[in-house]
């Protein structure tokens, strides 16, 4: 396992990216089941911005046409997606 890539680590790193984009006041406490679109009010542009930030943060590639990524809504789903991509990177 690469350092900083346990589920908890990814959650915390992802939370920081979201705070950087949305501001601490809006984000506050986030939980695994917090919805990016409904709870944090990410629009389509905001989600693309978050995707780019994730690519840099985790050194992964997220192709725009990736159907699995389209389905991501909660933070937990995002953590799982990043984990999957990290796993693909290690192979």
């Amino acid at each position, binding site marked *: 396992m690469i350092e900083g890539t346990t589920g908890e680590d990814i959650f915390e790193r992802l939370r920081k990216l979201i705070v950087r*984009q*949305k*501001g*601490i*006041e*809006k984000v506050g406490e986030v939980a695994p089941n917090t919805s990016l679109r409904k709870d944090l009010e990410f629009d*389509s*542009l*905001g989600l*693309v*911005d978050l995707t*780019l930030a994730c*690519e840099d943060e985790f050194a992964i590639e997220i192709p725009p046409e990736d159907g699995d990524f389209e389905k991501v809504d909660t933070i937990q789903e995002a953590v799982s997606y990043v984990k999957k991509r990290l796993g693909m990177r290690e192979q």
Partner: protein
Amino acid sequence: MIRRVVITGIGAITPIGNSVGEFWRELCQGKSGVSEITRFDTSDYRTKIAAEIKDFNPYDHLDYELARRTDPCIHYALHATKQAVEDSGLIVDDNNADKVGVIVGTSIGGISSYDRHRDNLLRRGPAKTSPYFITSFLANMVPGEISIMLGAKGPNKCVVTACAAGANAIGDAFDLIKSNKADVVIGGGTEASIVPSCVAALSAMGALSASNDPPEKASRPFDRNRNGFVLGEGAGIVVLEELSQAKERGARIYAEIIGYAHNSDAHHITEPSVMTQSKCIELAIEDACRTSFASGNGIIHKWDIDYVNAHGTSTKWNDITETKALKLALGGHACEIPISSNKSMIGHLLGAAGAVEAISTILTIKNSIIPPTINLEDSDPECDLDYVPNAAREKEVNIALSNSFGFGGHNAVLVFRKWVDTNG
């Protein structure tokens, strides 16, 4: 019955103050906002000075996410809009939203964002391009963001006429209300172009002063030793409102806008023209005359003009051309009235200049004080009018002009009149 238009709110962020009160106080004291550029390393640049906005953190004034994804030109515009709307006491809601418009100008738009995103594109490739690249630099995002903030659903557009943009925006706003397409319009201009690309490019044109030491002496309109303008930044926003509505809600009225004209030199991309500037001044006075006559306040002649807020950039060409144009349009009367340039203190705010200077003109009328033209120590023999040198002057001003002229040959002249209840 003619629809008359009055100013009921003003807001500004300028190199000499981030509020109207501070701006006006410093302006009347003849204080310069020009200093060494702090935004980037100017070692390789001929011009090392500008009139920057100071002590302004957009995150202190705007929603975090909004501040993060928008350009400083939008930060300034939103900050000035908040001041102006609060000052006017205007409430935008379902009852009036469709008749509240926004017309705001800018010369260059979100240039620092453009440069940053383009650098990123060249460095990291298209796959790493931000989704906010386009929305951060488009000029029309300025009125777009203002309408979103206010819920203003009336006519909305950006005016892009270089250094005349702020004046054109206020003039177009006046026309919109006169023609019953809106009851209220948020009008003005914004600029945030103190960035390497603009300083280098304007310098290449020979437009910028390189009198770096001392910085506060570089902008010297009408002075023999002037050698270019000093780049400034900021925003000016006014609330224009149809008179009967403003009176009905008990709004405070700063001044009435009674005339507007704009035309084109059709001559050269940067060289100004005496004939068309002069014509524009004449047309603006004619427009003011029509407004005044139609509202039962008599006709207006050129000799009724009490003061001119000059474009006065501190370039060789502008100051001579504008002086000649004023003489041609006003005749001997040009020699009898005070004319002053705010740019001697705040530099040239490009697309915001006409708007910030309109605010200064309005306050001159309201407060009977004419801000000076500073650094006017040795008059250019070809600039031989009364430019209110170096010290503010108390004078009753009833009718005033504000001139703005832009690259591309754009000329715009606004006419304001003192508001007294008896002329309502």
